[in-house]
């Protein structure tokens, strides 16, 4: 019997090619999207899972009080890692690490800028067992001049991983010997580029010895995970005993600590100062919902087409029942049919996923190799999807078709009703509502991205190149920066040069100041950037009061500040010039404000412009160059590199364009736009495919009616209008339903931006008209075909 069902299913699928194609393509795309989302989710949830005993490894995070300010941070008080295993036997081992960010790792031949350079104590590998390809984890960081590389970096530097062991590499001004190479492929939120011993550098010592400052990232391995909760209390006690908040340079007045399982660290985006990578679960939710929608739309196609063409299957059902098939057997048959279709669709989907993996990896930044060798998880996911479609989409047609009574359908020439037309209409409305919400979403996201691009940022981001200065010891760095600034300036294509520690888009650091307010000094924490003399001019920023920094005024390098208008406003100053301001740590009496700059966006357009202090530091930070408009870039950069090599031989010139790097902040949104556009188009295409199939069955069913109408004098236009009118009504209803949903969703999304485009009627009209036009185009093909059929033929067919 099973064979009989399979045979009839396959023959039905082969015979009705359009029907089969619509269902298979729709379902395959829906399933493929779900699989991609599943892969993405699986990857995001796999962070740090590969550490041995990950379930009992914890990160110590802190809730820090600075006066009335509360800060959640991923770091903790430095000395904890050393003390905890001594004080509390439940702690098996502990380690502390700090992230020194990006820098060059070099040999005599070449240099590579490497992200997430980690300094760690020698216990790190007993807590976090990064897999060693070569080297011994227990001794790798014991010697002060040792370094552990990732296999990627070691490969680039030395060609083979074995060759790397024992070789010298240079970092900043020192030489280190490679003591190990780790495999970095398993995803970890720490995502180290290279690991060095914490204690080689006296400057970083205070990170791990100061009880009054938030220092390194602390990781613990406990004997049992049940120990975690009580240990939190003990750490709080320990802190209370050891810390003296009054002496905190960072202004910390109190702190509590949490033990967070390491596998939760990656997706925790609430904590400030994350170690390496942070995921964003929101996007997973959004894409998950979209993939679900696609699957739903494809399932609706199946339901609609299966019931619409039920008349064709009615005779078969009647005959089977007459022969003695029970209703249950008929239901079984049709469910099997839908499951079979879903299986074929999922095989197609697997191929689709395989083909789109490179694109998927590019968009998501993941590295998933292949799906054709099914992992057990993916296999399970696929099975669940197949059963879901087979049963959810298959059950209505199955129950509907099995209801036909033999007595009725076997009487010759009687075609039974093709299912519940109202239900089918409702489902079409649902499909188009979903499509419309996505299309409107796409338009709004696009509009917002344009708005972001065109908003006046308060500075000119075009033609600005920023170049990282390698850390080669601060004296040399300072000398070289000063010299290269001058030499670049002499290039004809260069307008101005300066330096800055933070560029727009890179945010600012918090500085603690004492400021004059009502004739007394109050303490405030304000965003601060450190820049060179020419910074404001180079960036095209305008002063609204006072003066810019000047090389002629020798005192400008000592506690002279320029504030933005937002800061002046918040401080309530009517005239900011010569107001007193000084850092809390400085022992000086003569800090003053010399100028006020018009507000500019120094973070992103997500947030309002907050108060900002600009301080002068002409010696450090990135080298910033403004080029003439319409400069031939390749030639200019090559000129610059010639000069660069004189000062920083062996270091690549690591440059970026400000307009591009500023836009990096909207990468998440840009990605979302790409994905939104893609899926919105897919949903409308799949919905229209369903509509196409439906329209063809409608036209077929109404052949006789159309014939009679034409015989009675109906024109082709009349008939096309008649046939398309029904569908147009459905799309219009969908528009009415979609508008409030889309409005609410996109309004919520736009709240993420301090500077946002307005939702306007044209976005909704454009989406609605677009969908209507596509739907009508789809249906009118079938309508026209039906309307131009010879009426005599249509009537004789009866």
């Amino acid at each position, binding site marked *: *019997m099973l064979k*009989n069902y399979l*045979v*009839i299913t396959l*023959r*039905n699928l082969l*015979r009705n090619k359009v029907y089969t194609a619509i269902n298979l393509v729709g379902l395959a795309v829906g399933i493929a999207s779900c699989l991609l989302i599943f892969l993405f989710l699986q990857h995001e949830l796999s962070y740090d899972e590969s550490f041995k005993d990950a379930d009992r490894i914890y990160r110590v995070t802190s809730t820090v009080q600075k006066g009335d300010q509360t800060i959640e941070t991923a770091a903790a008080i430095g000395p904890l890692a050393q003390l905890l295993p001594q004080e509390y036997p439940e702690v098996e081992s502990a380690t502390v690490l700090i992230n020194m960010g990006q820098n060059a790792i070099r040999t005599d031949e070449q240099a590579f800028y490497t992200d997430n350079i980690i300094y760690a104590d020698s216990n790190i590998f007993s807590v976090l067992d990064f897999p060693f390809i070569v080297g011994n984890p227990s001794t790798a960081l014991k010697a002060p001049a040792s370094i552990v590389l990732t296999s990627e970096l070691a490969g680039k530097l030395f060609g083979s991983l074995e060759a790397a062991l024992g070789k010298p590499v240079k970092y900043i001004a020192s030489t280190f010997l490679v003591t190990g190479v780790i495999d970095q492929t398993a995803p970890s939120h720490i995502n180290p580029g290279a690991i060095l011993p914490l204690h080689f550098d006296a400057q970083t010592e205070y990170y791990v010895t100061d009880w009054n400052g938030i220092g390194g990232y602390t990781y613990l391995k406990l004997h049992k995970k049940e120990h975690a909760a009580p240990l939190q209390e003990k750490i709080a006690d320990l802190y209370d005993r050891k810390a003296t908040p009054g002496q905190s340079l960072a202004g910390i007045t109190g702190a509590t600590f949490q033990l967070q399982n390491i596998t939760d660290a990656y997706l925790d985006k609430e904590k400030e100062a994350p170690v390496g990578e942070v995921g964003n679960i929101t996007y997973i939710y959004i894409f998950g919902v979209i993939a679900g929608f696609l699957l739903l739309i494809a399932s609706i196609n199946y339901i609609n087409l299966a019931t619409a063409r039920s008349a064709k299957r009615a*005779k*078969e059902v*009647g*005959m*089977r*029942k*007459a*022969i*003695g*098939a*029970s*209703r249950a*057997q008929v239901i079984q048959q049709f469910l099997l049919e839908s499951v079979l279709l879903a299986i074929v669709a999922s095989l197609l989907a697997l191929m689709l996923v395989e083909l789109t993996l490179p694109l998927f990896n590019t968009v998501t930044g993941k590295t998933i190799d292949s799906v054709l060798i099914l992992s057990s998880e993916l296999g399970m996911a696929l099975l669940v999807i197949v059963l879901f479609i087979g049963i959810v989409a298959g059950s209505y047609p199955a129950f509907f078709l099995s209801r036909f*009574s*033999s*007595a009725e359908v*076997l*009487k*010759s*020439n009687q075609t039974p009703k093709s299912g519940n037309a109202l239900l089918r209409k409702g489902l079409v409305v649902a499909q188009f509502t979903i499509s419309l919400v996505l299309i409107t979403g796409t338009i709004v996201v696009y509009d917002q991205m344009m708005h972001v691009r065109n908003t006046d940022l308060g500075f000119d981001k075009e033609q600005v190149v920023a170049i990282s200065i390698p850390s080669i010891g601060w004296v040399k760095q300072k000398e070289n920066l000063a010299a290269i600034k001058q030499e670049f300036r002499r290039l004809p294509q260069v307008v101005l040069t300066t330096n800055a520690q933070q560029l727009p888009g890179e945010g600012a650091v918090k500085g603690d100041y004492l400021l004059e307010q009502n004739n007394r000094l109050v303490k405030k924490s304000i965003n601060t950037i450190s820049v060179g003399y020419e910074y404001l001019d180079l960036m095209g920023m305008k002063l609204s009061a006072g003066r810019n920094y000047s090389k002629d005024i020798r005192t400008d390098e000592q506690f002279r500040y320029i504030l933005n208008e937002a800061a002046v406003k918040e401080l309530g100053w009517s005239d900011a010039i010569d107001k007193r301001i000084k850092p809390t740590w400085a022992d000086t009496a003569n800090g003053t404000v010399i100028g006020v700059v018009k507000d500019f966006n120094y973070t992103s357009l997500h947030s309002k412009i907050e108060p900002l202090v600009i301080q002068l530091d002409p010696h450090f930070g990135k080298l910033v160059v403004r080029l003439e408009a319409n400069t031939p870039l390749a030639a200019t950069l090559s000129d610059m590199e010639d000069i660069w090599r004189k000062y920083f031989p062996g270091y690549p010139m690591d440059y970026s364009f400000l307009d591009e790097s500023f836009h990096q902040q909207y990468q998440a949104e840009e990605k979302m736009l790409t994905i939104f556009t893609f899926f919105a188009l897919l949903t409308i295409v799949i919905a229209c495919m369903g509509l196409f199939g439906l329209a063809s069955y409608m036209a077929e069913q109404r052949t006789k009616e159309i014939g009679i109408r034409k015989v009675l004098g109906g024109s082709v236009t009349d008939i096309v209008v008649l046939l398309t009118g029904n569908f147009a009504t459905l799309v219009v209803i969908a528009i009415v339903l979609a508008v409030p949903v889309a409005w609410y969703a996109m309004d919520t999304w736009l709240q993420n931006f301090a500077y946002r485009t307005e939702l306007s009627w044209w976005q909704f009209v454009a989406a609605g008209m677009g969908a209507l036009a596509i739907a009508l185009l789809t249906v009118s093909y079938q309508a026209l075909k039906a309307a131009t059929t010879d009426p005599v033929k249509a009537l004789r067919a009866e």
Partner: protein
Amino acid sequence: MNKELLIETKQLQKKYVTDTVETTALAGVDLQIAKGEFVAIMGPSGCGKSTLLNILGLLDSPSAGSFKFLGQDITHASERQRAKIRKQNLGFVFQSFNLIDELTVEENIGLPLAYLGVSKAETEKRVTEAMERMGIAHRRNHFPQQLSGGQQQRAAIARATVSSPSLILADEPTGNLDSVHGREVMALLTELNEAGTTVVMVTHSPSDAEYAHRIVNLFDGQIVTENLNVRKHAAELL
């Protein structure tokens, strides 16, 4: 009548109710059919012939009256019970053949055996026999649409008889056939009847009715006359 009764109905009624109109299709039919009989049901369009046949074939249930099949009262039998009786005892032949387009001749004929759970080897044997009996064995792998009307009806008869039912219900079996193929089909039905199968046939055609032992005339949902086919009986007596 000394033979065992296969079908016995008493005051069988069937009413169809649509939104506002109540139509009486059968208005009290008393009918007895013995095992081995060949009965033709005749009457004008709308007299209730097909309704009666559907009820006799357990495809439909009566609104009132009683219906015994092989002595068992099945007036109120559930759909499940009726499906069981159908597959064990009944074979259907329709005017429009009602072969399943997506199945080959062989698969169509084998379908009743599949629902009966007959083994594969046995199915193959019985299907081959049935096809040979109907002279369509050379068409076994063809789809219904590749066959002539006469061949399709023979395939349908093969399907109706493959499970050796005790009763064959034929609804205008020659209605879509030319006279040559029509006579062929009637000869087959007669042959089956002579081999012991009871046949009940609805027909418009007096010449087809001539093949039956007994002709029941229906009008407005009631039996108006019930005639023994004298010629047939005479032939049998000889």
